[in-house]
C-alpha cells in the first residue's frame, strides 16, 4: 500500500487552474522531493493532501484512506510542516507542542514523554520552556518538525521547510528528516524549489504550472529529460531561461 496516492487531481481557484490531472504515489519509508518553481502548485497540492481544501477532481489516499471521505483517519497518519511559520509566538515550546498533542487526542504524561523524546530527535533537548518568540528561524522549524511527528505519523509532508534559513540550518534539518526516513520508516514528501536538496537516491516529482512533468528516481528523470544532471533536468523541465537559473540555488 502506498503511503500517499495522488490520482488524477485537479484544482482551480475560480477560472485559474492551479493543478491539472496530477498523479503520483509515495512509498512508505521513502524520501520524495516535490520539485517546482514558485507558482508550480506545490502549496495547493499540500493543502489538498492536508484537507484544507476539498479534492473536487481526482482522489488522494493516505495509506488507503481517502482524504475527502475519511479525512480523520487519513490525517492521523500524516504530519505536516507548512511553509508559513505556525508556532504561537506567545507560548512556550512545550505549550505549542502540548496544544498539537491535544489536537490529536494525546494528553498528560504521554504527551510530555513524547515531547521530551522528540526534542532530542530534532536536536533541541531541554528547550521545552523557551518562548517560541525567542527561537531562531531554524530552531522554529525544528520545533515544527517535532510537532509534526508528535502523533507518530507514517507520512510527513514538508512544504518549503528550509526557505529563509541559512545553509547550516538547512543542511541540519534535511539531515534530520533523512535520518527519520531510515530510522523510523517514515515516508516523506519534501516540497522545494531548491535543487541542491535533491539526493541521487531520491524519488522526484516535478510540477510546472500545475502540470506534472516528470516523476521517478533521480537517474530516470535525468535520463528521460536529456539533461546531464538533476539541475539540468529541472531546468529543462521547468523551461527556465538562462536568467532564471538563480531560482534553482538557495
Amino acid at each position: 500500500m502506498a503511503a500517499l496516492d495522488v490520482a488524477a487531481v485537479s484544482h482551480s481557484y475560480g477560472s485559474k487552474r492551479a493543478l491539472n490531472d496530477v498523479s503520483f504515489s509515495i512509498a512508505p519509508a521513502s524520501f520524495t522531493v516535490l520539485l517546482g518553481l514558485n507558482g508550480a502548485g506545490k502549496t495547493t497540492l499540500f493543502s489538498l493532501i492536508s484537507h484544507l481544501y476539498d479534492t473536487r477532481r481526482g482522489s488522494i489516499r493516505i495509506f488507503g484512506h481517502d482524504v475527502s471521505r475519511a479525512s480523520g483517519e487519513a490525517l492521523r497518519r500524516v504530519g505536516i510542516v507548512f511553509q508559513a511559520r505556525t508556532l504561537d509566538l506567545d507560548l512556550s515550546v512545550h505549550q505549542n507542542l502540548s496544544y498539537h498533542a491535544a489536537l490529536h487526542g494525546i494528553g498528560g504524561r504521554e504527551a510530555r514523554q513524547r515531547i521530551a523524546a522528540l526534542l532530542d530527535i530534532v536536536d533541541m533537548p531541554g528547550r521545552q520552556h523557551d518562548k517560541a518568540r525567542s527561537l531562531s528561524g531554524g530552531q522554529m522549524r525544528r520545533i515544527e518538525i517535532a510537532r509534526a511527528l508528535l502523533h507518530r505519523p507514517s507520512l510527513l509532508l514538508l512544504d518549503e521547510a528550509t526557505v529563509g534559513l541559512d545553509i547550516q540550518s538547512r543542511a541540519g534539518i534535511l539531515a534530520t528528516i533523512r535520518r527519520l526516513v531510515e530510522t523510523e520508516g517514515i515516508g516523506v514528501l519534501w516540497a522545494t524549489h531548491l535543487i541542491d536538496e535533491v539526493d541521487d537516491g531520491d524519488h522526484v516529482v516535478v510540477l510546472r504550472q500545475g502540470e506534472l512533468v516528470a516523476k521517478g528516481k533521480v537517474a530516470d528523470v535525468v535520463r528521460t529529460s536529456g539533461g546531464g544532471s538533476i539541475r539540468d533536468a529541472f531546468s529543462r523541465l521547468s523551461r527556465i531561461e538562462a536568467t532564471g537559473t538563480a531560482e534553482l540555488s538557495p
Partner: protein
Amino acid sequence: MSAPAMPDKVAGIIPVKFEKFGLRHYLICLKGVVLRECLRFLHQRERFISSLVRPLIWLFIFAAGFRQVLGVSIIPPYKTYVLYEVYITPGLCGMILLFSGMQSSLSMVYDREMGNMRTLLVSPFPRWFLLVSKMLAGVSVSIAQVYAFLIVAWFWGVKAPPIGYLMVLPALFLSGMMLCALGMLLSSMIKQLENFAGIMNFVIFPGYFASPALYPLWRIQEASPLLHKICLANPFTYAVELIRFAFYGQVNWLSLGVVAGCTVLFLAAAIIAYDPSRGLVTRKQDTGGNG
C-alpha cells in the same frame, strides 16, 4: 511511480494501528483548545485590561453622567426603581461578550493569515468539533472577563442578588456561544485582517446601540417605532434581556428561545463555511504559499 512494498519491520515510533478516538480523546482535545485560548489571553495582558476598562468606563462615567437624564421606570425583572448603573450592568456584561466574541473572530482571521489556523484545521477530529471547541474556549475567556467586571462593579456598589451571580452563568454561557458563533461565521467571510474594521462599524456598534443594553425598549419605541422594530430583530437584544432576567433568578423564555435558536443557526452556518467541501473559506483563500 509504483510504490515499493512496506518494510517488514517499521522501526521506532510508528504504531501499527491507531486507537479509535473515544470520549477521552475528545475531552483531551477540548481541554487543549481551551487551555491554549486561556494561555494566550493571560499572555496578552493589554487585552485583559482593555476588556475590563471598556465596560468600566461606561459604568463609572457614562452611567454617572446619564443617571439623571435617562430615568428607568419599573419594568420586569425589576420590582422597584433601580439606579441607572444597575440597569446597564447586564448590558455591559453583554458588551463584554459581544466584544470578546468579535475578538475571537478577529483572532481567527489573524490565525488564518499567520497560518496558525491550519494546525487546528488539520487535526483528525471532526471539523465541527474543532470549531465548537474553539467557541467554548472563547466563551470561557469571555465569562472570566464578565466576572472580573462584576467584581469591580460590586465594589462600586452595583450589586445583584447573591444567587444572581450563579444564575447568570448559563445565560452568559448561551449568549457568549451565540456571539462567538456569530464571530466565527463573520471570520469565514473576512478575507483580510484589514477588513475587520467593517465588523466594528456594521456589527458591533449597531448591535450594541440598537438593543436595550443602555436604555429600555419602551423608551426606544417612544422615540422611534422603526428603531424599536430594528431592536426587536437584533439577537443581541435578547442576549441582554436573558442576562438581565437571570441576574434576578428569572428566565425570559422568549430571549432564551431566540438566543438558543440564533446560536444553532450561526454555528451551523459557521461549520458549513469552514467545511472544505462546501465552505466559503477555501474559496476566498489564495494559494497561501509560493508553490
